[in-house]
Structure formats: C-alpha cells, structure tokens
C-alpha cells in the first residue's frame, strides 16, 4: 500500500512570461509541499526562493517579453524537493553579480534575489548558459516540541 512517505509529486509546465502566471505555479508547488507536510520554515524559504527565481526568469532573463515563456519542472518527495526554472533569455554569469551585502552596495535597491535563494535552499545551481536555475531543498528536521511546563509545587 502506498503511503505519503512514498509519494512523489512531479509536474512540468510552460507558462507565459508574466508574474501572475508565476504566482499560480508558485501556489501549485506550495500546495504540494503542504500535502507532503514540509515544515513551515521550509515552505517559507522555498516560496521566497521560488519568487526570486521566477522574477529573475521573467524580468531579467526574458526581459518582460510577452512572446517568451518560462519552463518550470518540480519534483517533490518526502525528503527533498527539486525545482527547475528555465527562461528563454541569454543567461548570465552568477559570479558577476555584485555582493549585495558589501558596504558600497548595501543601499542599492536590487541584487539580493540570488543571495536569498542561496540562503534558504539546500543548493542552487545554474546551467552553463545561466538561463536555467535548479533549486533544491532537503526537508528540515521537525522543530522540537516545547517541553510542557512543570507544574509548580
């Protein structure tokens, strides 16, 4: 008999190049994670990383071009989720993105997306062209339940 522990959910979609289509697929992935009972803090981090990756693909990769599309594939299992996001842009070199935490960049209003993806995911990798990012997250250990308060004598 199959149980939730064996469950693997996967799908692949190609969406039009706009952020509301991005939001829809984001919700679909979050729903999968909730079905698989990922911890709340994992879901927080994955949603944030997804938002950053989708905005990067739509805005920077595809340059908001409505004729372009974004391909998203997701494979979610009990222990791990893997999401691939590919745009039709020219790509970029991740190492060329300036460090947003450097004093000279701290007041710049943009450039923090990749840093947040790295911070919240277990791994993020780009293909050689830089137009496809793979986000992976290993399930966190459950938060320890708080000890019941000892009754005072």
């Amino acid at each position: 008999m199959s149980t939730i522990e064996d469950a693997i959910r996967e799908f692949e979609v190609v969406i039009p190049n706009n952020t509301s289509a991005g939001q829809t697929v984001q919700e679909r992935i979050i729903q999968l994670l909730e079905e698989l009972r990922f911890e709340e803090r994992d879901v927080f981090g994955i949603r944030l990383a997804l938002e950053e990756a989708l905005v990067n693909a739509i805005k920077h990769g595809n340059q908001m071009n409505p004729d372009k599309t974004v391909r998203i594939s997701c494979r979610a299992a009990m222990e791990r989720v893997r999401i691939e996001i590919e745009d039709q842009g020219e790509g970029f070199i991740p190492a060329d993105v300036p460090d947003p935490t450097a004093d000279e960049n701290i007041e710049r209003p943009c450039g923090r997306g990749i840093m947040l993806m790295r911070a919240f995911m277990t791994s993020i990798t780009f293909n050689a062209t830089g137009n496809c990012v793979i986000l992976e997250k290993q399930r966190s250990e459950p938060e320890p339940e708080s000890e019941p308060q000892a009754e005072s004598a």
Partner: protein
Amino acid sequence: MTPGNRKLDIEEVNGVTVARFTDKKILDESNIQIIGNQLFSLVDDDHRQKIVLDFTNVEYLSSAALGKLITMDKKVKAAGGKLRLCAIRSDIKEVFKITRLDKLFQIIDSRDKAVEGF
C-alpha cells in the same frame, strides 16, 4: 483609490504616522509597485516625517519589496525624517539579517516602542 487597492492602513499616533501593511504577502512585481507608490506618497505628497512601518500582517516578502523599503528609507532621510520598522516576524527578520539590511534600517520589536521617542 478603491479599498481593494489600499495596501497600507494609516494611523496617526502622537504625531507619528504608523503605516500597517494590509497584505500577508509582499510579493509579485505589480503588487510591490503599488505598495511602493503608496509608501512614497506618504513622503512626497503628505510630507510625513516620522514614519513607522508595521509588519504585523506580513508573512512573506521578496527582495523586490526590500528594494522599495530601501528607496523609502532614502526618501524619508532626504526629507529630514525618520523611518522605523516594527513587528517583523522571525522568518522575515532572518531575511533582513541575511541581506545585512538589519544594519541599514531601524528595526524595533513592538509597535508601541517604535512610536516612542522619535
């Protein structure tokens, strides 16, 4: 502005403007654009100088939202005012910490403390 588009609840407390975000998620470019415009209007149109941004309702925020907050901070400073952030939940505080923006913004735990001593 239609009520559905109102992204900030504004309250005046002892001469301090408290702006509470109404959305749970400050995500999506077009939404963030609207929020940014409503924030900037507090300085550009209403000339408010003591502003507290209340994050009580906010569960998610992206780097694009951080960008708007940075621009807001610059605007307030340029106008000779002060901006404080309050009631930020721990997950989001982590976002400010990772990006080192906890050093740029004045972040105060409770709304009452944020309103005091401007």
